């Protein structure tokens, strides 16, 4: 990675007025094929759904402030957590990670002018708003109530219309995700500038290769499960329906064959983002580029053979429980390699505690807790006790909120100056971080104890002895809700009134920083040439000069 020369100052070559590089606001509401427009469309749309999902979460927490089901009807309560999870997963984290960041960043990072299939890209995006509208609209008909896992036979008995809408929205979302996966894979493999070999790619691209592979292998199985479920629901077949001779556990296998990989689809892009952000703000090269790149692939492979760890208390035989325990345990190893690599990158660096770096460190801190509880859950005897309890709720929020959502904010702050062309307010960014970090831990840490002590998940009424801890969680969730205010104000205010951002405010080395902020329509006036590795911070100046000469 050291065989590099200094950069041609691309930004300086471009016309100072950016005359033809500007977007009109109307473009964002059209079927536009520019990957940057699509990236921002994804981000704004998914953030909107985050607010919707968050509102539902606050409703859930308010219901749980008391042991009795006194806020909403228990059936509506089930609809609320079903929609909360579905929206958060399929309309917030997946579109924000694989839609927004991957679309916006991949072509810029590899020196391409757009994605490989720009029209397909726009189609993929425009499948999501109808899916979201259908889901939210289904509250009018009585939404799905069987949880985001939608196990039959329950999901076949809770109301046809809502369940059918749920299935079709997910099929739309899944298709959109597959189209995205094809596009990312092709773009990364085929459209890099000629000077960029695989091992000179920014690590975010490696993460997206791993993510896309998972999407392409696993999502079709989800589609299969959902289509069969819809036949059972609407046509009276009995694939999964025991009254007709079907087998409900088969659905669980098919569902988790997708949905365990899905948790990595939801976190690998953020592993990529963290690998970009930590070196830049620590002013040090990434520690162990190869290990971090290859561990993404290892996670992606192992992620395909661990699904039945969600079924340890289901109708599963002992050998299967043991096999999936061991594979699940092993996945902690490549995950650990990454975490230690990031820690070693920070060690001895010159760290700026700005908003993206704070969120990245918050990511590390919370994700590790989720990883540790994940390993504990993999131990079958222990999982039999805590499966389907609040312990699992705590685990999944430590990885999905502490991991993915912290990752999203890391990315938003880090690339905000690039995408918007203005600086965000550092002060309010830090306030946002502190409120989010505290609110998050107050909300979710006590849930571990609740689960261990005996509180099942997905219940609207619980034993009075659990009330105190539940109230702590509820107050934490209110703090989390308020924490979005400084973020929203900051992001919106600075969008129009922020200080103009330079092209490369972080002195970074990857290509997206070598063009104007925001980048012009086709990204680069002159395509950039690879002259340094993506993370060559502190590599001697002379070394660079020496290579220019050769």
């Amino acid at each position, binding site marked *: *990675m050291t065989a590099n020369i200094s950069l041609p100052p691309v930004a300086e070559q471009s016309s100072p007025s950016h005359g033809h590089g500007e977007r009109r606001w109307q473009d964002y509401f059209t079927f536009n094929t520019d990957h940057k427009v699509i990236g921002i469309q994804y981000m704004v749309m998914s953030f909107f759904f985050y607010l919707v999902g968050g509102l539902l979460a606050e409703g859930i927490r308010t219901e749980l402030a008391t042991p*009795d089901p006194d806020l909403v009807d*228990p*059936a509506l309560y089930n609809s609320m957590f079903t929609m909360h999870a579905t929206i958060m997963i399929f309309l917030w984290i997946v579109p924000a990670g694989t839609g927004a960041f991957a679309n916006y960043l991949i072509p810029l990072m590899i020196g391409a002018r757009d994605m490989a299939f720009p029209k397909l890209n726009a189609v993929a995006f425009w499948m999501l708003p109808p899916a979201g509208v259908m889901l939210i609209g289904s509250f009018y008909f009585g939404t799905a109530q069987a*949880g985001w896992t939608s196990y039959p036979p*329950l999901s076949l008995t809770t109301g046809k219309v809502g369940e059918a809408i749920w299935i079709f929205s997910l099929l739309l979302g899944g298709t959109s995700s597959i189209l995205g996966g094809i596009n990312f894979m092709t773009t990364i493999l085929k459209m890099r500038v000629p000077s960029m070999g695989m091992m000179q790619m920014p690590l975010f691209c490696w993460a997206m290769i791993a993510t896309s592979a998972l999407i392409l292998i696993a999502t079709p199985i989800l589609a299969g499960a959902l289509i069969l479920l819809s036949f059972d629901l609407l046509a009276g077949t009995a694939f999964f329906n025991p009254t007709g001779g*079907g*087998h409900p556990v088969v659905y669980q296998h098919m569902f988790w064959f997708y949905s365990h990989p899905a948790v990595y689809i939801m976190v690998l892009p953020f592993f990529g983002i963290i690998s970009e952000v930590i070196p830049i703000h*620590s002013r040090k*090269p990434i*520690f*162990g580029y*190869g290990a971090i790149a290859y561990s993404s692939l290892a996670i992606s492979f192992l992620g395909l053979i661990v699904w039945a760890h969600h079924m340890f*208390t*289901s*109708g599963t035989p*002992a*050998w*299967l429980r043991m096999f999936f*325990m*061991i594979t699940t345990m*092993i996945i902690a*190893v490549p995950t650990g*390699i990454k*975490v*230690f690599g990031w*820690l*070693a990158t*920070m*060690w*001895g660096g*010159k760290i*700026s*505690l700005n908003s993206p770096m704070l969120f990245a460190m918050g990511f590390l*801190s919370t994700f590790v807790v989720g990883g*540790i*509880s994940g*390993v*504990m859950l993999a*131990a*079958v*005897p*222990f999982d*039999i*006790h805590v*499966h*389907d309890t609040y312990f699992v709720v705590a685990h999944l929020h430590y990885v999905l909120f502490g991991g993915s959502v912290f990752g999203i904010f890391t990315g938003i702050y880090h690339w905000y100056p690039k995408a918007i062309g203005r600086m965000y307010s550092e002060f309010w960014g830090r306030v946002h971080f502190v409120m989010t970090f505290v609110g998050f831990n107050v909300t979710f840490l006590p849930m*571990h104890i609740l689960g*261990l*002590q*005996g509180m*099942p*998940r*997905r219940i609207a*009424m619980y*034993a009075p002895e659990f009330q105190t801890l539940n109230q702590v969680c509820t107050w934490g969730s209110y703090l989390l809700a308020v924490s979005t205010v400084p973020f929203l104000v900051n992001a919106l205010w600075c969008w129009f009134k922020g200080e103009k951002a330079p092209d490369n405010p972080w002195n970074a080395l990857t290509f997206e920083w070598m063009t104007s902020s925001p980048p012009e329509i086709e990204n680069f006036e002159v395509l950039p040439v690879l002259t340094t590795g993506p993370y*060559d*911070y*502190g*590599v001697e100046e002379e070394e660079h000069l020496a290579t220019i000469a050769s």
Partner: protein
Amino acid sequence: MTSIPNSILTLVAGILLTVVSLWYGYNNGLMPVAASVEATHVDALFNAMMAIATGLFIIVQGVIVYSAIMFRRKKGDDTDGPAIEGNVPLEIFWTAIPAAIVLWISIYSFEIYGEMGGFDPSAANDMHAMHGGKNSAMAAEMPGMDMKAMEGMTASGIGASPASQGKEAAVNVNVTGLQYAWIFNYPNTNITAGELHVPVNQEVKLTLKANDVIHALWIPQLRLKQDTIPGEITQLRFTSNKVGTYPIRCAELCGGYHGSMVTNMIVETQENYDTWVASQIQPAETTGSAVMQSTLASIESMNPATMPTHEYLAPYAHEMGVRTEMLAKLVRDQQAKNHIHLDS
């Protein structure tokens, strides 16, 4: 002051870390009472994992906080840090250590799973693998099918612990999960109850089935949980060693009142248990249990999907252990929703 060499500092930190981790791991107090030997085994595994978890947690959070303080960029320093791109021995080290840890946890879990009875051949096999072809025909008859027909089939779940494998359990109970109640039937005495009574220090075998949707029988104090699946039988075997009343909670989402699908397990001395059995058998000739039986039969034949909750719930309020206010509220809710007038 003479400075202390780095290696000694590291050693002291390492010892401290180990002590703190072990102390917290083995004194975490996070689990409820353990009411069986198997539960004690699970707790031993949990404590060991907590000790490891505490150590890892402290190391990682420690490095993050230490870096944030010690390696903070000084104002005005715009230079880069040292260009360290990796260190292969170090990377091998932090690949090997976690690998060893998870391997150890796997082996330990394997052992404990065996102690609990996970490998009992009568529970360890996949019933569907064994009854392959006939599977769907059999499942088709399931809803009305009585437990006798399924006896002798292997069921997945937790079986007998190694010492009592191959032997019959002292107490057999057939458990039916239905929205939103647990029904316990003692085949030898034909007692049917809404609460699970078991004698202390005797091996109990639960044979589980579900009537409508999937439920999961969870007894936190035994650290045991098993899904009940329509069209399939599952089992749990355990020996409780502490007299007491413990909650049984449904742990698999089964509908609106999933959270109220709660009852008790009463572990009592053999004498008290016998007294209870006698008290239950007696009224069988008269009315009580007969009514109970017919109610049970009618409940089991109902299709909850087509029926307002309270209708089939009402006769069972007591057995289910649902608080009466809850039931009243439930009925009110339903009335408001369906505009049905319920004369009770």
